[in-house]
């Protein structure tokens, strides 16, 4: 099986502009940043959450707390994946009780990662509200989960994959659509 690049969905500038817009939207819909905290889902949700927090500082002058969540232990397919997924640490340096949380991830697809992330969050406490922010929503949900803040919605087929590449993780900055070719 080969993987071929079909098209570029976002450039570095577009990613940056989208992150700025998402930050504004979150602040606006939350009526400020007072009780807000961001949780980046590993791996690429983490740099995105940090960037959104940085953008919020420009808007409100406030440092919104950012945590990271590794969802490996909460996955529902552990007995189906062949290899052993490597655990990374979750670091949430603030109590989540009564917080207004925004989960941040790169791509929303089946919804299973977000289901796992919510299970992980609720082991830590009882947030007042949890919303979801994603850079790309590509459809094909298998669970009743929707994002409150979406960078861009993209129509995709099952054989297509969206790759979000971020400087912090991949050393380059763009979003591409690739396809598995048998």
């Amino acid at each position, binding site marked *: 099986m080969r993987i071929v690049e079909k098209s570029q969905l976002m450039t570095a500038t577009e990613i940056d502009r989208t992150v700025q817009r998402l930050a504004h939207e979150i602040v606006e819909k939350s009526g400020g940043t007072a009780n807000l905290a961001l949780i980046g889902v590993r791996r690429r949700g983490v740099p995105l959450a940090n960037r959104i927090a940085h953008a919020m500082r420009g808007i409100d002058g406030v440092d919104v707390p950012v945590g990271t969540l590794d969802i490996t232990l909460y996955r529902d397919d552990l007995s189906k*994946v062949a290899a*052993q997924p490597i655990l990374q640490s979750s670091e949430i340096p603030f109590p989540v009780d009564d917080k207004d949380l925004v989960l941040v991830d790169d791509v929303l697809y089946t919804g299973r990662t977000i289901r796992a992330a919510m299970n992980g969050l609720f*082991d830590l406490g009882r947030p007042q509200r949890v919303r979801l922010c994603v850079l790309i929503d590509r459809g094909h949900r298998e669970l009743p989960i929707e994002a409150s803040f979406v960078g861009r919605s993209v129509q995709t087929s099952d054989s297509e994959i969206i790759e979000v590449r971020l400087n912090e993780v991949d050393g380059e900055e763009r979003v591409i659509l690739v396809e598995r070719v048998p």
Partner: protein
Amino acid sequence: MSYRFNHMLGIEPLTAEEIVFLLDQSKSFQEIQRHPLKKLATLRGKTVALAFFENSTRTRISFATAASRLGADQMNLQAESSSVKKGESLLDTVRTLDAMKPDCIVMRHSSSGAADFVARNLDVPVINAGDGTHEHPTQALLDALTIRDRRGNLDGLNVTILGDILHSRVARSNIHLLSKFGCRFTLCGPPMWLPKELESLGAAGTSIRRVTRIVEALEGADVVLTLRVQQERLHEPALPIGEYILQYQLTPERLRQARPDALVLHPGPMIRGLEIDPAVADGPQSCVLEQVTNGLAVRMALLYLMTSGGADAPSEKDSSHAAD
């Protein structure tokens, strides 16, 4: 980098990289001990068989708690009340357990090599929870995690081990583990527990010296590992208990010979006033309770690594992403 472990029988065959991987994976499980809700569903539907052919309280409770926190069910075999007493062979007993389809067997046995023997005869993953005087790998891993947490790394430490080293699987597993990181060892205890053979333990070229005077043994130590003294092994005229306390008890005065930030470890159960002075056991250098908490993290990591995932296959490039 990821490694696959079919069994966990001992520290000796592992590489330093594999040990670092296991300690890193254990870190994630340390966090869970601090969660208000400590129970995960990660191993829901899996069964861990705890087969303890030798008495154990803390190790058995630690493994049982680790399995519970991962959501796994348990089968419990305690030799005291089992068919072992009626004369059933080890192989028949574990085959019976295996026929109930556990996903992992955790076993302790008084014979060295018992876990290896079971692993060779069954297809199920086996974790050695102590076999005779051979190895106790999870204890060495939890000790290493404790040392690494306090000091940042394991490299090149001076490690002093006190007590009955001859009969100690904890000492052997610790020497195997720490020698892979270039640690140097001073073994100290009554001469009858310090045979020359101990000098050949550990990675090739490891510095191991045997010392009978405790103040000399503690000089410059970064880590002091105190072993339990089994009173049934102390008998007159070889060594009366009073004499042992006089000569080998770890007291605050003696500990001053070690480096000021030296760590004191004890695998438990700890007999205050015998091998260790209460002031040391409760002092700032003591890691005894951290060891217990870290034991849960290490055992959760091993149970997770050995019972989740399918057959051997190359690891996914980015598994966290593949789920969604």
